[in-house]
């Protein structure tokens, strides 16, 4: 993955830039020594690293505005950063960019149970948003597996999803408003505790814009009352195809579980060894979770199990206690970590129409043989959001490149069957050059025009999302006037 060469003129003005930034921020909020900037050299796509020119950690919207104004005047690119858990390289810096981290913006500003909203600063972690309303039995629904670490800022930028989004939707469906600082330092407030936009839905296009339109400093989020209870059931099958067919039948029957998660043999084995979840030895495993009172759960699980039995399961295990429920989820929730322990891997994120699951799984298996790299599959089956994990050896010359080529083929397959390149992780640098597989030149141009409006100088996270060649003229265009 190529990144644009740093601009020597910007590198040369580092001392002046640091001095100006130090004038608007506390001393410890401007990080510019080489050994310290390394902490910001990558996100969770660790194959790509580059320390930034410097990193800043503002603690208020005003400080963010002051930083952006300076960078705008100096024509310096800015890469916003939440917790750095992006799997797509969304927060990867270039050597001539400033990392703007929002980690110090982590306060809860308002909780309002009557109106079912919470207002937080954007650096607050996803899980701690739910934590802030737990006492009243409320929660914030989108739950990425990285929720202990990832920030609301990153969730908004990537429009992140989670295991329970089949029922509750992804970030954009739970976001009501933001305070955002534009690249020139202007502060805008969009949306709020009321629903929907009175004019154009700017909030809708800001969510998922990967830090390219503005720096989000505050967010108003929808919170929900916790269900009375939840119970998962684990189902083992003899083939991925059969498991896929079972998913389609459950959905068609009109039952809508909160989650339907899928794992194939490789992932079952690895996560079981790692977590001791006690998974059965089989080709495909589904975890289906439903919510409600005990009686409601019994009613729904009854229907689901009846459907599952028609597909010759090798095992059906209903959780009978909180402890058993936790054990069923344990392996799934630690899947990425477990695979990471045995191997280097690349995690893909394409989405396909649920009906294409059996075909796509078979093709991935065939391609795995062609490329000579193993693949594990673990994903949100209810909505077709796949996560093929391609195993490779980072120390073996050429392996990363083979892995990337294999990954690209899988993503193209997803698009071919009617799906998309990324369901929740974002494009970042990782899928940047594949955008043409999904979108025509005109489709991409329409998106670039949106960026032109919000950030005419193309200074915010400029080398992401779109193929570099396509954005070159805009990125290298005349810098915004001082």
């Amino acid at each position, binding site marked *: 993955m190529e990144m644009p060469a740093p601009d020597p003129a910007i590198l040369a003005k580092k001392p002046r830039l640091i001095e100006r930034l130090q004038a608007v921020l506390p001393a410890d909020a401007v990080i510019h020594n080489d050994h310290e900037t390394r902490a910001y050299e990558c996100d969770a796509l660790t194959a790509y690293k580059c320390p930034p020119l410097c990193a800043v950690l503002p603690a208020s919207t005003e400080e963010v505005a002051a930083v952006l104004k300076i960078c705008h005047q100096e024509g310096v690119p800015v890469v916003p950063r939440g917790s750095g858990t992006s799997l797509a390289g969304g927060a990867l810096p270039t050597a001539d960019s400033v990392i703007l981290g929002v980690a110090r913006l982590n306060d809860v500003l308002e909780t309002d149970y*009557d109106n079912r909203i919470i207002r937080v600063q954007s650096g607050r972690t996803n899980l701690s948003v739910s934590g802030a309303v737990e006492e009243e039995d409320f929660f914030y629904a989108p739950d990425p597996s990285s929720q202990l670490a990832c920030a609301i800022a990153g969730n908004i930028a990537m429009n992140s999803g989670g295991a329970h989004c089949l029922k509750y939707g992804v970030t954009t469906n739970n976001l009501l408003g933001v305070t955002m600082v534009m690249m020139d330092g202007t502060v805008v407030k969009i949306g709020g505790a009321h629903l929907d936009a009175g004019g154009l839905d700017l909030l809708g*296009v800001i969510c*998922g814009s990967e830090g390219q339109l503005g720096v989000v400093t505050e967010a108003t989020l929808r919170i929900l009352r916790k269900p009375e209870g939840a119970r998962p059931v684990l189902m083992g099958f003899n083939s991925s195809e059969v498991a896929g067919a079972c998913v389609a039948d459950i959905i068609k029957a009109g039952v809508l579980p909160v989650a339907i998660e899928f794992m194939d043999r490789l992932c079952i084995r690895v996560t079981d060894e790692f977590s001791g979840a006690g998974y059965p030895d089989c080709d495909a495993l589904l975890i289906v979770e439903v919510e409600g009172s005990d009686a409601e759960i019994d009613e729904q699980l009854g229907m689901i199990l009846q459907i599952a039995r028609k597909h010759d399961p090798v095992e059906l295990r209903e959780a009978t206690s909180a402890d058993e429920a936790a054990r069923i989820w344990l392996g799934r929730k630690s899947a990425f970590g477990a695979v990471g322990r045995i191997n280097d891997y690349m995690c893909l994120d394409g989405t396909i129409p649920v009906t294409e699951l059996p075909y796509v799984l078979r093709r991935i298996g065939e391609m795995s043989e062609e490329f000579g790299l193993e693949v594990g599959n673990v994903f949100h089956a209810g*909505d077709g*959001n796949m996560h093929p994990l391609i195993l490779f050896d980072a120390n073996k010359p050429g392996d990363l490149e083979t892995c990337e080529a294999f990954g690209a083929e899988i993503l193209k397959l997803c698009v071919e069957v*009617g799906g998309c390149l990324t369901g929740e992780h974002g494009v970042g640098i990782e899928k940047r050059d594949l955008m043409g597989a999904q979108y025509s030149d005109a489709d991409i141009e329409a998106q670039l025009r949106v960026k032109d409006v919000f950030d005419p100088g193309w200074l915010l996270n400029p080398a992401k999302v779109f193929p570099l060649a396509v954005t070159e003229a805009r990125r290298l265009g005349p810098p915004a006037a001082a």
Partner: protein
Amino acid sequence: MLDTLPGEAEIADRIRAATGPLRIIGGGTRSIGVTDGAVLETSATAGVRLYEPGALTVVAGAGTSLDEIETLLASENQALPFEPPRLGNVLGKPGNSTIGGVVAANASGPRRIQVGACRDSLIGVRFVDGRGDVIKNGGRVMKNVTGYDLVKLLAGSYGTLGVLTEVAFKVLPAPASRATLRVTGLNVADAIRAMSAALGSPFEVNGAAHIPSGEGGQPETLMRIEGFAESVTYRLGRLTELLAPFEPVSTEEDPAAISQIWEQVRDVTPFADVEGDLWRLSVKPSDGAEVAARLPEAQLMFDWGGGLIWAIVPTGCDLRAAVQGIPGHATLMRASDDTKASLGVFHPDPAPLAAISTKLRSEFDPRGTLNPGLMG
């Protein structure tokens, strides 16, 4: 996806050849703004392109009638989650609502509080922009973060960014069973408190409305639950307990009566024959009582737990001025053209946002061809 869709090339040609403004019309039942220009219809794009019940997705030409889509989904016991309203009656614009019009207006009914607005179920669009270029965004899968989300931007853009030619939705199973709980005699503040209590419970209330002069002129506060039969019965019981302080509470379990109640709320039919201007406000639910206090002469109806307010006010009355300072927005839905021109149909955005919206419009429609001036 096809390279061209029925009717799409013709729409693109019309736009490219246009020398003046075009007025875009789907079914014409939601045309609330004032624009002139030659009429551009979307009817040639009509037709369902794909329906996969097992994947919970439907894709249709923008000119397809809403009726056709809802009938098709019902044949598989599915439905559009957001319960699109039919406003032709209350707006005095009879006709056959199209799905493209629903999207262009981001029209969403009572269930919006639980499952989101039209824009939340919308997963893909194709449209022709003001340059005559065909653009697609999103697709036909539920989870998609590939590039910017222009799907949301197009929803509710009233044809000012592009002419929609195709739309794709996530659909949901239709509820097997439903019930409605009714509290009579509450004032607005208590009604909103009751609805907040219900919506903040774990019992999945997916409709919460208050009609100050309901059946027999009595105020009625209505709450709906849907799902499998046993679950509905259970939740109905628990909610009745929860709302006991707001008595008298009664329940409605007759399916026909329930449909009628919620269609009324959805389509605002009680205001169809009431004289005066019709406004639609979106506010924080707990601000609903303050809105009512500021509008003593208005007739009101509340949906979305109090957050969506329909108001009939004397003709020409500037409702926005009356509710000044309450966060949210107010749209002038029905009034004379003069009133619409002087007060503005859409809520003015604060200056920096208005500047962004204006620039977006001029990027998508540089010649100002598509419904010019409609939204600002």
